[in-house]
Structures are given as C-alpha cells and as structure tokens.
C-alpha cells in the first residue's frame, strides 16, 4: 500500500463516528427501530449538521457525542411524527423487543387536563406495563415484596409530578414511548436509594439488612447503587459526555474515549506510542511498567471525575 493510500487519523475518527451514528440512528433507544436506509440518511445529515458548528475538528469525543445526540434526536422525532400520522404507537417498534406487549400512546399519556392533570385513560394501562420491569430492578437492589410495591407506587406518582427544578413533569420528557422505560428505571433507582436512606435513618429500629452506608460511601450519588450489569445500555455516551464534559480536559476525554468508549486502541499500543507519551508527559524511554503505572494514574483521575459528575 502506498503512503497516499493510508487513511489519515481524522478519516479513521470520522469513519468510527459514522458507524456509531448509524447505529444510534437505527436504534436511538432500546425498542425503537428504523430501516437501514432511514438510519443512513439520518446519520449522514447529523454528522454534516454538527460539522457546520466547528471550523476545526474538535476532539473525537466531542464530535462523536454531538453527532450521536443529533442522530438520536432526529430519529426520535421521525418516529414520533410517523406514529402520530398513522395513529399507531407500534410503528417503528422493534419486533424483537419482548420486554412488554405493546407501546402505549405517548400523546395521550402526555395530555394534561387543565383541571385534572394527567388523567387520560391510557394511564390505567401504564402500571401493568411498568411493574414487572420496576420490580425486577428493585429485586436486584434487594427490595422485594410490599416494600417494592410501595416504592413502585411512588415512582408512578413521580412520573406525573412537576420537578422543582423546571416545574415540568418527567412524563413530558420522552419523544417516543420507549424512552419511558429508561426514564422510569432511573426514577426507580433513585427511589430505591431513598428507601435505603429512610430505613438507615430509623436508628432505634433493628437493622436487619445492609444499611445504606454499608452499601455506598456517597449517599448523594445514586449511581453508586447501580448494578453495572442490570441495564448496561441505559447510559449513552452522549449522555455521559453531556454530564461530565466540563470536568475532564480535552486530553482526558481523548484518552477515555479511544481506550474505553471507541476502544480503538489498547493499553499496550498507547504506551508504545511516542507521540502519546510526549502528549501526556510520559518519558518515551521509560520502562513499560513505569509507563503503565503513569497511564493507570491518568486513567484513574479521569474516571474518578466521571464518577463524581455522573448524576445517573
């Protein structure tokens, strides 16, 4: 292969971005599925739109996060409009999604009566759909039986209750019905933490189970409670980037993105790359073990920042 045929680093980054965007456009949220052709059109337009905002190529992490966000949002809007036009909430629903029987009508769930609030009859069908998923999540966190039912009922109320921060009910956040599932799962996780906190606060009562303090050293961060294997796809990279963007330097994002998100390099490749070593202040002539130790420290600092800033 001649030198001219070797793709540039940026081309490699853009190809990875295309691939990620295409997948995100095709499945912006678990349960939604558009055709491959639609995904291609949306992904290309999203990347072109984001490029307009930059005069110079930003970090791969930033460009990819922005493009993913744009692609996912475009697909969600397309699906919502199609469902509205067809009056069919099942349009573009992934047939392989077996978590529940059928989508509900999101427009009806989001309809708010001036006098009675959210009282459409579609709400009567929502508990049956969400209960098995919520009880499974609570069960993994050690909350079962009547306690789990109590927490679940609280989460339903919370879906329709205005937040103090923006005076907007969480049920109004989704663009497509499938988004209610991860939204409700997060609410269930938060209420599970509250449940443990309340139980831990009852000092005079015998504490039969594990206390909240025993389970986490950071009571303000519900993410501490998350079982990483319970819902691995629930936090997208664009969400993580949005939450933690300011906390990490551009170099730290590049390191974390290439190593863990894009997984385009290995630790071994990094420590053998002189330009990488120079960029991060690692002596190129240092031993491999020294390089690995320094790299480990850099990674831990960056991951710690993400952990502290990840609000869900």
């Amino acid at each position: 292969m001649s030198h001219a045929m070797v793709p540039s680093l940026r081309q490699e980054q853009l190809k990875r971005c295309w691939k990620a965007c295409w997948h995100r456009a095709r499945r912006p949220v678990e349960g939604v599925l558009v055709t491959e052709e639609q995904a291609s059109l949306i992904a290309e337009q999203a990347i072109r739109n984001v490029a307009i905002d930059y005069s110079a190529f930003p970090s791969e992490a930033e460009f990819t996060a922005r493009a993913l966000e744009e692609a996912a949002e475009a697909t969600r809007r397309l699906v919502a409009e199609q469902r509205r036009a067809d009056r069919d909430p099942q349009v573009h629903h992934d047939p392989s999604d077996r978590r529940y029987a059928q989508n509900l009508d999101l427009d009806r769930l989001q309809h708010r009566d001036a006098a009675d609030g959210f009282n459409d009859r579609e709400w009567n069908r929502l508990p049956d759909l969400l209960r098995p998923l919520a009880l499974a999540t609570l069960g993994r966190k050690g909350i079962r039986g009547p306690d789990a039912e109590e927490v679940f009922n609280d989460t339903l109320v919370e879906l329709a209750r205005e937040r103090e921060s923006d005076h907007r009910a969480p049920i109004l956040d989704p663009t497509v019905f499938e988004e209610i599932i991860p939204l409700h799962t997060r609410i269930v996780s938060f209420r599970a933490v509250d449940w443990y906190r309340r139980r831990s606060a009852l000092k005079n009562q015998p504490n039969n189970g594990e206390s909240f303090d025993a389970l986490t050293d950071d009571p303000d961060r519900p993410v501490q409670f998350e079982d990483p294997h319970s819902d691995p796809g629930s936090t997208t990279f664009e969400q993580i980037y949005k939450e933690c963007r300011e906390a990490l330097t551009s170099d730290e994002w590049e390191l974390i993105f290439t190593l863990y998100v894009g997984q385009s390099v290995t630790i071994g490749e990094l420590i053998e790359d002189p330009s990488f070593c120079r960029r991060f202040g690692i002596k190129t002539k240092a031993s491999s073990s020294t390089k690995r130790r320094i790299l480990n420290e850099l990674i831990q600092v960056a991951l710690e920042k993400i952990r502290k800033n990840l609000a869900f």
Partner: protein
Amino acid sequence: MELELPPHLDSVRQRLAASLALHPADQAPATPSGLLEDLERHFDTSVMVPVREKRPWRDRLRSMLASPAFGIAAAVVVVIGFTLPSLFEPSSFRGGPTAAPSGQAVQIVLVDEPTGIRHMVETSGDFEAGAVASVDQLEKVFSILGPKVIVNFETGLLRAVDSAGTEYFSAPIPENTADLSTVIAEAITHL
C-alpha cells in the same frame, strides 16, 4: 494487557464501554459517498491560513496612503500641528517680530566679493545656490527685491534688511572666511 482499576472505577469503565455498544444484529454500511471528502475539505478549509501574495512596495505604499487610517492619522497630525502651538505663549514659541513674510525667500547678496567667496558660500551646504547673488556695486543691491543679507566687502559689513530696507542685524564680516556662512545664517534668523 488491561489495567487494574479499583472496583468503583471499574464500574465506570464498564459504563463507558457499554455507552457506545453496537447492536450485534446490525452492520453499518460504508460511509456514504462524498461524506468523508466533504468533511475533510470542510475542516481543512476552515483551518487553512490564507497566504498573502507578495506585492511590490509601490503598491503597498499606495494602498497605505489610500487607506482611511492613513487619512485619519494625517488629519490628526495636522490638527495637532496647528492647535498645539496655540497652547503656548506666542512670544515663547514664535520669538520676536520677523521681517520676512512666509513664502518670501531671503537673498544673500555679495557686494564686490573676492574671488572664490561666492563659490565657497554656495557650496557651504547651508544655503541654496539660487539664493546667492553677486553685485559689483552697492546701488545694485536695491534692485533685488525682498529681504536680503548684504555682505558688503567694500565696507566690511554684513547686514540683514527686509524688503523695505529696514535693518535687523549688522555685524562685521569675519576675518576668517570659513566663518562667513555661519554669520550669514545668524543674520537670516533675524529676518
């Protein structure tokens, strides 16, 4: 060849690894035709530094003179030139009354000068050659109009007179002819 991370950070790593998970049933097609090229061109063009073409100095000077900034700067210099002196006392800035109206050149008239004196004055570098005139008789001096310095070798006197003949300065011609241009220059300052 993975690094060993503390458990609480390893869960963050797992979240990051899963955040861009691709669905195993899907296979992304190749990048659309022209997308990469367009993006490369967009970013390359955006960061490209325009190369200035080399222009002749006359063109650059002409551009500078024609620029609004130069006009403004020139106007400021003129305004300052006229207004600043007015801030001072007239006597301390302009000196005493002078005989020579502005724009009227002072003539140096040599009367019956010895050979070589005129050439020496002209080539002294202190005066313009056209300002030096020679006459063989004093009477002819008055045919030359305007203020003048009369260097009369007949009388041995050097005088500065205005166009009306009023004398403003008078001094003997120095014995050392090398000092002559210096005395003429001093006489001119009194006109």
